[in-house]
C-alpha cells in the first residue's frame, strides 16, 4: 500500500493513487494530487467542482452522474477536462478524495 504524508499524518492510497478512506481527505490532499495531475494551481473553478463532489459523496456515498455534476457546477464536460486533464473520474473525483469509480466507466 502507498501512503502520502500530510502534516505528519499518513494517508493511505490504493494502487491507482486514490484515497482509500474519503474521511481522511483534506484540502492539502487535493493540492498535492494537483501537482501529480499537472495542474499548476487549484483555482476557484477547481474548488467549486471538488466541493460539489465532496458534498454529493457525503450525501449519497457515490459520485454523481457526470451530466449532473456539469449541470450543478455550471461547467461543460469540455471545461471539466480543461480543469482536470484526466477527466471527471480519474481527475476530479481523485482530487476530491472519492474512491475510484468501478464498473464499465
Amino acid at each position, binding site marked *: 500500500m502507498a501512503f502520502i504524508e500530510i502534516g505528519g499524518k499518513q494517508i493511505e492510497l490504493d*494502487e*491507482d493513487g486514490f484515497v482509500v478512506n474519503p474521511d481522511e481527505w483534506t484540502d492539502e490532499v487535493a493540492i498535492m494530487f494537483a501537482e501529480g495531475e499537472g495542474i499548476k494551481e487549484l483555482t476557484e473553478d477547481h474548488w467549486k467542482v471538488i466541493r460539489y463532489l465532496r458534498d454529493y459523496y457525503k450525501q449519497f456515498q*457515490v459520485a454523481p452522474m457526470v*451530466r449532473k455534476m456539469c449541470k450543478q457546477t455550471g461547467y461543460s464536460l469540455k471545461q471539466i477536462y480543461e480543469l482536470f486533464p484526466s477527466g471527471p473520474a480519474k481527475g476530479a473525483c481523485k482530487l476530491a478524495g472519492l474512491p475510484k469509480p468501478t464498473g464499465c466507466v
Partner: protein
Amino acid sequence: MPEYKGMVQPVRATLEEMRKIHIEPVPDELKPEKAIEYLDQIRKKFRSFVMAMESCTKCGQCAENCHTYLGTRDPNNIPTNRAELIRKIYKRYFTLEGRWFGKLVGAEDISLDVIEQWYSYFYQCSQCRRCAHVCPFGIDTCEVTFIGRQLLHWLGITPKLHASVGAAMERVGNHTNLPKPGIVDTLEFMSEEIMDEFGVEVEFPVDKPDSDIMYIPSSADFLLNPYTLMGAGMFFTYIGANWTIPSTVTEAGNFGLLFDQYWTQRGNVMRLLNAAQELGIKKIVWGECGHGWRAAKMYIPSLADRPVRWPIVHIHDEIANMIRNKELKLDPSKNSKPVTLHDPCNYVRACGLNENMRTIIRAVTTDFREMTPHGMDNFCCGGGSAILFDDPEMYQRRILLSQKKAEQVRATGVGKNGDGILCAPCSICKAQLYPMVEEHELGVEVKGLVDLVGKALVWK
C-alpha cells in the same frame, strides 16, 4: 507499471480484495500443482473445452479475424496460440503423447511463468468469439479464455477491476457502488432533464410492488449514459407500462461470466430472481449491456436454482416488436446526423440480437450507414469482457485493440464532418469507445440505441 517478464498485465486485486470475493489465494509455491488439479476438474466437465484442446489443426483461420492480434501483432494473441498456452499444459498432463514425448509434441511443464502468461494473454482476449465464428471446426476459443480466467481466479489472480466489480455487486447490487438514495437521486434528475429537453413527464419508479415489468438497466448508465436511462424511461412511459427498477439489482451486467462462472455468476442470478419474486413482476426487460444480456439470456435457465417463471427479454426486442406492429410514432428526423452501428459482440454472436437493432435504427435515424463487416461478422470494440484497464500500459493496449474498430468507423464516413454518431448499445462498448473515438480522432459521438429511440418518440 504491471508487467511480468516483458508481458503486459492488468493491475491485480490485493489479498484483501480477493477475500471479499470469497477467494483465499493459493501461495505461489503451490500455484503450479493447484493449477493442474483445477484444470483436471474442469476438463472432465466441459466438452467444449476438451474439443478446443484436442481438435485444432492450426489452420490459422482465426489469426487475421482477431482484432487483438491485428492490433498488437503479438503471435500469442492469435486465438489458437492463446489457447495453446493452456493446450501445452493439457497435453503434458492429460495426453499420452504429451506425457511420453513432452516438448517433442509441444507439451510443457506447468510453472509460475506459464500462469503469469495466462494472466497476460487471457486478459487481452475480449471474449468476442469472432474466432469461434470463423473456425472451420467450430472450436469456441472463448471457452478457453473463460476457463483460463476461471483457473486464475481460483488461484487468486483476478484483475482489480473485475474483483472490485464483484465485491460492489455483492455489497449493493450493482457494479458502480450506487446505494438506493443515489439511484433515486439520479433518476429524479433524469425526470427533470426529460422535462427540460422534451417537455414530457416521466417517472422512474424504484422498487414499486406489483409492477408488470422489472427493468434492469446497466449501472454505468447512472454515471455516464444519461440518454440510455432517459430513453428507457420515455419508452416505458410512452407505452403506458407499469414498470419499475429494482434497487437490489440495478445492474444488467454479470461479471461472473467474465471471471468466475462457478460462484459469482450464479450468485448474481439468484439475486435477480429474488428481486423478481419479491416485487411480484410479470416480465423482466433487460437494458443495454452486451455480456450481461448473454449471461441473462443464455445462462440464467441453467444457472437458476429454481424454475424461472418470468419471460426475460431485451429492450431492443421489445422496441423492435412495437415498431413492426406500428405501435410507436417515431420521427427519424430527430436523429438526422450520420450514424453507424457498432454491433456488440455478445448480441450478434451469442444472442441472435441483430436484425432487431437494425429495425430500430432505421426507424429512428435518417442517415444510417452500415460498417463493413457488420452483424455477426463485426469486430469487437476492443474492450469486450471489460478489459477496460486504465493504467498507462494497459490503456495503450486498448488503443491498439480498438484500431480495427476505428478503421471500420472511418470507412463509413460518418465522422467526416465531425458530427457523426457511433451507436454502440452496450455499456462496455460505450466505456471503451468514449475515449477511443478521441484517441483515433473519429469525429463521432458515442450513443446507445435506446438513446436515439427516446429522441425520436412523437408524443401526443
